[in-house]
């Protein structure tokens, strides 16, 4: 059963729930096997992710329709304001404070990604965690390659400006960084 981790990772990020992700993955593999006999090489991963994504959307439309359309305004200009400082993600040294800080930051980053609207979250996950090319992402989410680039740019901008990360910029703990 190829690409199970990739399938689950995408489903987990899109549904934001372990049990729902498992159901979606099972359904997606059934669909995949019903229609096709084999998976080929690495192209097979993008193809399978297409089915997983599609299954996620079907599931979300049925169970949480609000999430599918919520907050997905591609055209609205992003406000320019002081954003997240990625340097803070780098905790150096092995002291307990640094590790605790890093854990807190990790939690905050994951929360910020999880709070992105679905349409932005998916391109970010496919690019940064699944390492798909723009062309592959374009196939998976069925939009032109140019749209992938602009949507990804906007996803990153939203993430930098998102409440959890901005709140983190103000954390006094951030000053501890060596």
């Amino acid at each position, binding site marked *: *059963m190829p690409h*199970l*981790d990739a*399938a*689950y*990772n995408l489903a*987990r*990020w899109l549904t934001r729930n*372990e049990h729902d*992700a*498992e159901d979606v*993955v*099972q359904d997606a*593999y*059934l*669909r995949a*096997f*019903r*229609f*096709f*006999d*084999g998976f080929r090489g690495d192209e097979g991963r993008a*193809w399978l992710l*297409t*089915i997983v994504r*599609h299954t996620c959307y*079907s599931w979300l439309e049925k169970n949480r329709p609000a999430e599918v359309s919520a907050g997905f305004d591609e055209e609205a200009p992003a406000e320019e304001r002081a*954003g*997240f400082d*990625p*340097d803070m*993600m780098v905790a150096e040294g092995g002291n307990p404070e640094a590790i605790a800080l*890093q854990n807190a*930051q*990790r939690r905050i*980053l*994951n929360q910020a*990604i999880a709070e992105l609207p679905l349409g932005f979250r998916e391109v*970010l996950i496919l*690019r*940064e*965690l699944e390492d798909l*090319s*723009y062309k592959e992402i374009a*196939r998976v989410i*069925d939009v032109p390659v140019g749209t992938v*680039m*602009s949507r*990804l*740019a906007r996803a*990153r901008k939203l*993430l*930098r400006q998102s409440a959890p990360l901005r709140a983190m910029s103000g954390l006094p703990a951030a000053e501890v960084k060596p």
Partner: protein
Amino acid sequence: MNCRDALDLVDGYVDGELDLVKSLEIEQHLGACPACKVQYDQVRELGSGIRAHALYHAAPKGLRARVAAALPREPASRMRAWGWRGMAAALALATLLGLGFGLTLLQPGADERLAREVVAAHVRSLMADHLMDVASSDQHTVKPWIAGKLDFSPPVEDLAARGYALAGGRLDYLGERGVMALVYRRHAHVINLFVWPQASGADSGVRSDSIQGYNVAHFTRAGMVFWAVSDLNPEEFKAFVGLVRDQLASAR
């Protein structure tokens, strides 16, 4: 390159997705423009932050076994290759099937289930290159080939003289048994005619409906069940079904 262009392209640059000319242009701009350079650094560092710290949710332990248990023993489809176009059709179909649809003319229950299978088999046959196992317009080639594979000898007629050319045949799987699929062409349209023997064998009239844009019709004749499916327009499709029935009547 000005700042606006550079900011539009900076994500593509970070992701290594720009062509050589654009890459060189933006490189030059970033070297000369501190403001854009800050944007570039932010995008790049955010990316490494995500890759380093965002959770990659690996599949939980039991999931592999659970999915494996849910899968059919053998793949239902005999397709050896798949393509993106075929996939799109399959997904569209899967969605439609998932949403459910009402069949008005076909009998509910067994007929409806079978109709779904027939449409699915038709769509599958158009994907990749598995329309035909034997490509021949010669009924004397198609018939023995199929007879050698199945436990029945189906009636095979070329209807080219009437505008419906026999293009070949293939084995398929419907209603939990191996069936013959005869492939006919009318202009650019493909018609799949599925045939298999039926125990009860009583002749029946034509029942038809349209499912997701495909016309579907079935009838029983001479101990054989016939299901036809195509995206052909309803008039020509109906004419085809009529022709098949006429041929069967005259062959007896």
